[in-house]
């Protein structure tokens, strides 16, 4: 950020606006805690806590960017972005990366509290962090795609839920994958690795090792970047 609250780049602008909207900032930071605190500091079974926290990260990632991009399309701001002297792929990647980073900032108190609550499960912390980042990155891309199909920010949630709910189920978030085929499908979905790392960090029984969770999540961070590049023209040039 340059000087007194001036933004010269797209990521600076996103952060500046996020910081300036105080009421939204407080709500965004409190919301994950309201959901997460009872799960972490009650006798809630770990499998339910892992399920709820995976869904929380998914919703925060998908709805945020989708609603913002839909609103921008309705107000004409997407055209202002389109006219910037930037390549669409670079522009959308930067926007979604900063959006996912803000979402991660929102969720970081939960991750910190989880580490404090179960310090002995530290081998899962890197996978937890990258797994959260992967889910946020993938769902931000999904939200961006959903924004091209919706005519109001409120519709984004409905469009996003259509692919997300079956994907969460197939990832084994609601019930453990029972067959080899199902497990194979779960391995190519981003939610699997965050959910598995959460199970590990919460003393439940993870299906994969911490290293595999970390590796899978890292791949999905890269996949999200690739998807954003491929979708950029469609997202930024849809009126």
């Amino acid at each position, binding site marked *: 950020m*340059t*000087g007194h*609250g*001036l*933004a*010269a*780049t*797209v990521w600076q*602008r996103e952060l*500046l*606006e996020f910081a*300036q*909207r105080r009421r939204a900032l407080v709500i965004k930071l409190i919301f994950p805690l309201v959901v997460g605190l009872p799960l972490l500091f009650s006798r809630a079974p770990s499998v339910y806590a892992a399920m709820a926290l995976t869904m929380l990260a998914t919703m925060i990632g998908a709805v945020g960017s989708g609603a913002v991009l839909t609103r921008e399309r309705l*107000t*004409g*701001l997407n*055209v*202002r972005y*389109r*006219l*910037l*002297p*930037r*390549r*669409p792929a670079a522009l959308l990647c930067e926007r979604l990366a900063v959006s996912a980073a803000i979402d991660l900032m929102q969720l970081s108190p939960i991750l910190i509290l989880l580490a404090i609550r179960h310090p002995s499960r530290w081998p899962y912390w890197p996978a937890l962090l990258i797994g959260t980042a992967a889910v946020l990155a993938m769902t931000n891309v999904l939200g961006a795609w959903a924004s091209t199909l919706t005519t109001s920010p409120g519709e984004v949630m409905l469009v996003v839920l259509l692919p997300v709910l079956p994907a969460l189920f197939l990832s084994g978030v609601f019930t453990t994958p029972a067959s080899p085929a199902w497990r194979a499908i779960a391995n190519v979905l981003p939610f699997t690795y965050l959910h598995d790392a959460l199970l590990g960090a919460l003393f439940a029984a993870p299906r994969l090792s911490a290293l595999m969770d970390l590796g899978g999540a890292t791949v999905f961070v890269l996949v999200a970047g690739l998807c954003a590049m491929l979708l950029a023209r469609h997202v930024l*040039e849809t*009126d």
Partner: protein
Amino acid sequence: MTTLLSARRLTRSYQNGKGIHEVSVDVEPGELIAVMGPNGSGKSTLLRILGTAATPSSGEVSWFGRTDFRDPSVRRRLGVVLDQAAHFEDMTAYQNAWFFARQFGLPPRTAAERLEDSLRWAGLWEARHQLVREYSLGMRRKLSLVEAFVHRPQILLLDEPTLGLDYRAELALIERLQVLSLTGTGIVIATNDVHLAERLCHRVLLLHEGRVIKEGRVASLLTELAGVKELELRMLSPIELDGIRRLPEVEAVSAEADSVHVLLKRGANPAQVLAVLNGTADLVSAMRVRQPNLGDLFLKLTGVSLRLEAAAE
């Protein structure tokens, strides 16, 4: 002299039947071009395509000899104001303008100097730290103009630039555009304001239902109406126009809320129109005869009033 922008046979159709068809236009350095037409004639569509905000279904545009509309080096040399004055509402005017100035490649010191100059010119300097959501339509339009001018683009594309501006701001804008034109900036304005077009622009494109129906220099277009006069009647209440339309001396007739505009052929006597009014003449509260303008040319060519459509907008 290198052509700044060259558009050939541009077509873009929308599902509602609107759009543009086979429109071609060249913009030379220093040239001021007005794109005129009623609401829905395709002015904004044409400007969006020339400004790289939309793509044509067919046809080709080249900017500075390049045809890749996503090329950052093309967009860096364009200044575009579209019909929607969209800004980041939760940021101040200065934050908005700073962001765009820096995005278009201005170094911090230059951005600061030019923004102070431009915001003072627009009368927004005192309100620069106000959130844009608190701005009026006119202030937003001025801010859009500041953002379009600040990086000193080689081509300016302005959709209804005087919309929402007060008279003083309009005069300041005309002056600024004249200066920019003298320094080689190619300027395209979409407008319904015949006075703005006649006063400011070198060349005019008249659009009707997405097609160019007339194109040329303002002076030469107006010679087509040499000897023609316009009779404007202020009415107390609406009257039947068919009688006037049938007069052989009448070229075209259009009606607005409280006035009737009659385009009279060369040598016609306005008194003949008044004679047709018969018993309704007492409904005329005022009348004047004046030289015709580009709006009258449009009326003559299409039978549609530019003014009437502009009022509807």
